């Protein structure tokens, strides 16, 4: 189907582009001063969660281009992800990383709702979980000096190296309460490989990772709050920087190519006996060897670190090392109930 009813061809399209651009520039009334254009850097840092979302749904870890897409799309995440996906479509695949473990994370956040105390302790981190959603009217006319001072006051967000903390689910596994998980399956690039049913787990996770955030949340919520007794509990939620290692093109030895910020969420839930008595669900980098046996709520998503790694573009020299904060608050909001 198409807009056969809209006629005028070239002229109509050109006019649509022109009026969109006028609106993007803040056109309100003739002669009014629209102010300054948004800088891509400002979008990247001050709208960081939107950038993360667009990178996640776009399937490409590139904060700079994601910020540009957001600017171009007037802030519509769906349209911005669309632009990023179209760009990603022709990027060469330079390598394929091995499965990464969440135990390599440099943590900025680590919480568990399954246990009151966990070995290594809980670290709330930069989370909106406990924000009171009241207007901060001082931001209506923010003092630029205070704004800069707030940025300067920050030391390091990394609180600890993950090696210091044992995995919470390990304790459960030792007690025999969790089903053992099989070996990691090879990654599937769903944009290169044809869909073949039954879809392997990595492909399923890749679809979820790129899925529209609200859509995935709806799936999680309907799974959780539908019929029956399924109440997943966050055994452990980790947010941190994951060093990405790629095989060296000549030697084949794994070399650290940069790092991405990922969220790893391990969820425990009792499940149908036919499936397994207890299942641990985890969704993180899609190359991660994590247990995701029965489909419980896919609560958290991570960046696709595996195969979408691309050459750095000009002006984004830190594309690989910059942070991406994923969705942690939404994940806990949807899980944290009992």
């Amino acid at each position: 189907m198409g807009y056969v009813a809209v006629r005028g061809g070239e002229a109509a399209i050109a006019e649509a582009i022109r009026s969109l651009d006028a609106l993007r520039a803040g056109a309100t009334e003739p002669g009014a001063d629209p102010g300054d254009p948004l800088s891509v850097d400002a979008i990247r840092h001050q709208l960081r969660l939107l950038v993360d979302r667009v990178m996640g749904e776009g399937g490409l870890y590139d904060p700079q281009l994601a910020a540009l897409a957001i600017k171009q799309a007037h802030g519509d995440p769906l349209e911005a992800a669309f632009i990023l996906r179209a760009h990603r479509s022709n990027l060469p695949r330079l390598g394929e990383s091995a499965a990464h473990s969440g135990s390599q994370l440099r943590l900025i956040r680590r919480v568990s709702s399954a246990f009151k105390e966990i070995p290594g302790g809980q670290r709330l981190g930069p989370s909106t979980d406990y924000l009171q959603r009241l207007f901060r009217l001082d931001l209506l006319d923010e003092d630029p000096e205070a704004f800069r001072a707030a940025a300067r006051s920050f030391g390091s967000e990394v609180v600890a190296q993950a090696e210091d903390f044992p995995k919470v689910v390990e304790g459960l596994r030792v007690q025999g309460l969790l089903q053992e998980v099989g070996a990691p399956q090879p990654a599937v690039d769903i944009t290169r490989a044809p869909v073949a049913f039954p879809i392997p787990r990595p492909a399923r996770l890749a679809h979820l990772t790129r899925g529209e955030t609200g859509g995935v949340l709806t799936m999680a919520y309907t799974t959780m709050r539908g019929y029956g007794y399924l109440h997943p509990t966050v055994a452990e939620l980790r947010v941190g920087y994951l060093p990405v290692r790629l095989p060296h093109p000549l030697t084949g030895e794994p070399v650290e190519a940069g790092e991405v910020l990922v969220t790893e969420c391990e969820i425990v839930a009792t499940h149908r006996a036919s499936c397994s008595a207890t299942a641990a669900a985890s969704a993180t980098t899609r190359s991660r060897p994590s247990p995701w046996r029965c489909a419980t709520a896919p609560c958290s998503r991570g960046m696709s670190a595996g195969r979408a790694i691309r050459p750095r573009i000009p002006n984004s020299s830190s594309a690989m090392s910059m942070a991406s904060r994923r969705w942690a608050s939404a994940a806990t909001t949807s899980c944290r109930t009992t």
Partner: protein
Amino acid sequence: MSPASSLQRPASSCDRFGFLDDFAVREMRRGMLKALAIPGYQVPYASREMPIARGFGTGGMQLTLALAVPQDRLKVIDQGADDSVNAVNLRRFITASCPGLATTTRTAEATLIQTRHRVPERQLAPGQMMIYQVPYPDPLQIVEPSEAKRRRCHAHGDYARLWVKLYEDVVRFREVSISNRYPARVAGRYIIDPSPIPRWDLPKLHCSPVAHLFGAGREKKLYAVPPFTEVVPLAFDDIPFAVEGFRATDCSRHACATCGATDTFLDEIPQVGAPPRWLCNDQDRCAERQGYPDGA
């Protein structure tokens, strides 16, 4: 008045005591009266959107805000702890929006106790009120997906499928496998979901001298157990209801590693390379037993 100038109020202040407007307060109070008048009946209410995310205790919070008066003394606990982040956050919001309202961590001194997951170990006394944060208000939800049908079941007192679920548990596991949210019949009529309190706490609701109010913010339901009301856990004559035993492998009862209590609900704290420790879940009870060593 332009939109911007209408926003020029100081951000921290609330316009009214208890945040909620008069219509919301009236609805909540009417709802609670109805809930008390029909013990165990789930009263639908509008449930306002609060500045704290749903699932974090907004149902309980709305009850507290609609009930609190400046003379009250409020205690907020989450899993028995007064200092858990969620409890701290709820208390912070409630005290900021209820100027004059005092708070306490001591069960004995509180007039309003908002709780998630626990009933205090200390015997409650008249003049106190319990407010529960409820994720799932309907005990039939585990057996019937349609709310319309569930309401009909409640109206007819038709709890057959719940009994079958219990029976199936007994057949498969030789016991009822429900660890929390154990269904109980109130005043011989409605069956309630008592919120995710452990089995341990359920007998405390039976003929309790205080009112127990339940608020499910997300599911938009209120219900109540009035004072001195029968609350009977669902059980078969030959397989009686039992609370947690906290038994070690040699059948001895675990004691709290801090206060030594053997009559409280315990938390298992996993340790690295060592057997788990057991501690009182109710922090105030543990501290009280030790004579409040920190002066808390």
